[in-house]
């Protein structure tokens, strides 16, 4: 069942100074379509500035799309800060990287986890206490953490609290924006395993946004690869990473050192991702693409289906 659907969603921001007539637009997200199904994870991967975080904010209604539709549980997502949106927000929660910023340092862990229950008016005092306790155990913490403050916990424990807080109002969708990037490898594995377990137990749909291809491959059922605000490849996790078709995905996969093996299959990719303010004409990837032809410089390729559940946006893949 489709939980969240983005249909050709775009978001652009004005930049420059309108007084001097220098107003122009930065397109952060350009015609992005993706879906998250119940009990499944859709991974969004790309380098900085590719629009993956903005996509997550659009999915939650924290940003308004300039065009396109965001459908959550088959209904168009209402505008932020409206009564309808607030009611829906109970069902969709955000987990992100900076746990110290996410948790009010003057509140105890117990109060922090109970806060969403209070806001959404769920249960009475006694049942909230019980729910907090259940959530603490569910994320691998214990009762004695309830009275502590965020700074008394380690980074991994704080991420567990953020997760417990997100799960408190029984959401159906989690948007995780770089949830493990600030953590050490061993703690990262703890949180990734916890996320996978909770998903199986609760049937959550997860939109998992990360720059880390290894982690995204590990948790995702479907993967969306973004470059300069556009989806360049979309498909089942194993096929996208194991048999990438878009030249960018191929380069991204080859830049991930194998263990063991290192850069045995490295495909050199020149340059760095350009700033979204300097979007090239045609295919956004063509200045770095070793296969680029005239058509790539002139016409923007469309995201075309290529096999089951596979879409690739490349002239050379669709018309070899």
């Amino acid at each position, binding site marked *: 069942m489709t939980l969240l659907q983005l249909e050709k969603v775009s978001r652009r921001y004005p930049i420059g100074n309108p007084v001097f007539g220098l107003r122009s637009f930065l397109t952060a997200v350009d015609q992005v379509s993706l879906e998250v199904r119940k009990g499944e994870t859709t991974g969004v991967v790309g*380098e*900085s500035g590719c629009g993956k975080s903005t996509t997550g904010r659009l999915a939650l209604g924290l940003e308004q799309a300039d065009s396109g539709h965001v459908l959550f549980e088959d209904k168009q997502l209402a505008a932020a800060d409206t009564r309808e949106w607030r009611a829906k927000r109970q069902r969709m929660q955000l987990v992100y990287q900076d746990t110290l910023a996410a948790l009010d340092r003057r509140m105890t862990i117990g109060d922090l986890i109970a806060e969403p229950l209070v806001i959404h008016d769920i249960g009475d005092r006694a049942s909230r206490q019980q729910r907090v306790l259940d959530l603490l155990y569910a994320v691998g913490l214990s009762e004695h953490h309830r009275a502590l403050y965020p700074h008394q916990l*380690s980074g*991994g424990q704080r991420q567990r609290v953020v997760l417990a807080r997100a799960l408190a109002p029984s959401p159906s969708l989690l948007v995780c924006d770089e949830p493990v990037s600030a953590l*050490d*490898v*061993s*703690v*990262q*594995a*703890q949180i*990734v*395993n916890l996320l*996978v377990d909770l998903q199986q137990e609760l049937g959550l749909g997860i939109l998992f946004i990360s*720059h880390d*291809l*290894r*982690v995204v*491959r*590990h948790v995702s059922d479907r993967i969306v690869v973004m470059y300069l605000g556009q989806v360049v490849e979309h498909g089942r996790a194993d096929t996208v*990473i*194991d048999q990438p078709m878009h030249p960018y995905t191929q*380069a*991204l*996969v*080859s*830049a*991930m*050192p*194998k*263990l*063991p093996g*290192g*850069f*045995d299959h*490295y495909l*050199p*990719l020149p340059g*760095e*991702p350009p700033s979204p303010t300097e979007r090239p004409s045609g295919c956004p990837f063509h200045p770095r693409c070793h296969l680029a032809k005239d058509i790539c410089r002139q016409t923007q390729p469309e995201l075309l289906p290529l096999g089951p559940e596979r879409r690739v946006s490349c002239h050379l893949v669709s018309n070899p």
Partner: protein
Amino acid sequence: MNPMLNAFQTNSANAALFTSHDVAAPRKRPILTVNDLTVSFSGVPVLHGVDLTVDKGEAIGIVGESGCGKSVTWRAVLGLLPKSAEVKGEARLDGFNLAGASQSKLEQVRGGRIAMIFQDPASALNPVHRIGAQITEALRLHRGLTSASARAEARRLLDQVGIPDATSRLNAYPHELSGGQNQRVMIAIALAGEPELLVADEPTTALDATVQAQILLLLKTIQRDTGMGLVMISHDLAAVAAICDRVCVMYAGRIVEAAPTHTLLNAPQHPYTRDLIGAIPPSDGPRVRLTAIPGAPPHGGLPPGCAYAPRCQSADAACAMTGPDMRTISARHVVRCLRVADGTRQ
């Protein structure tokens, strides 16, 4: 180019670029030998005795989680720790002990014989000076080059680190360059003193995936071409293993295992090394459950026995009592684990 550097090149001329099967390779002269290095901050020990050597032309990796002492080790060697740090032990560079040496002595070594680059190039570079000036400053300090010759050498260095259009780039300010290009400039400045050893502390952590690969391979290429030693400090075992000949794994202020990369990845002996490898999601093959190491590394005081015992799945009563010594199990493969020493592990 100075004669010493030429000699280095000849030595490493036949070394294959990206192979790490140096198990049978003869040992070269060590450049730097660290013996029983300990560091404490205001009486709290953070480094509990580190021993290691870096051979001429060798690339070694230092891997561990935050707080394990991987950066502190190298900052202590180069005298970059704050005054509150108490450093004991020795770090010998050709018989000269760097640990606890005076700043004036250290300044003859830093940037010249040993150079260091850091994670965040944007804060390491001076934002109000052109990058050409910052490179020629290093050339003047360490090699006495001035005016035209310095500028020509700066241009050559920018070429070497892969910055296109070096001549015009010399006039750029750091903010005009991207993160990856700034890191290349940092590498150029580090190379300006023709160092025998380059210490890179998390050099690619702040960079995007595709740029990270470019910088890692650039470091490896330069290390091979100039024959300098390379120390790569990182939390990312995969990145370190990709370019280093040998890897040291640190835990709670000690090296717990050190071995040639190939051996470490294929036959890790210390439980922490195994768990660390198991915690990294594989880049291909079937998706298996990750090894989640329970708990967190010790903070401040160490447990009485092995520091890893409280989190170790194979620890027994003895591990909680006795701190293990470093054992040599094969050529260049050392492990600090009781269970390995008494032969219960293969």
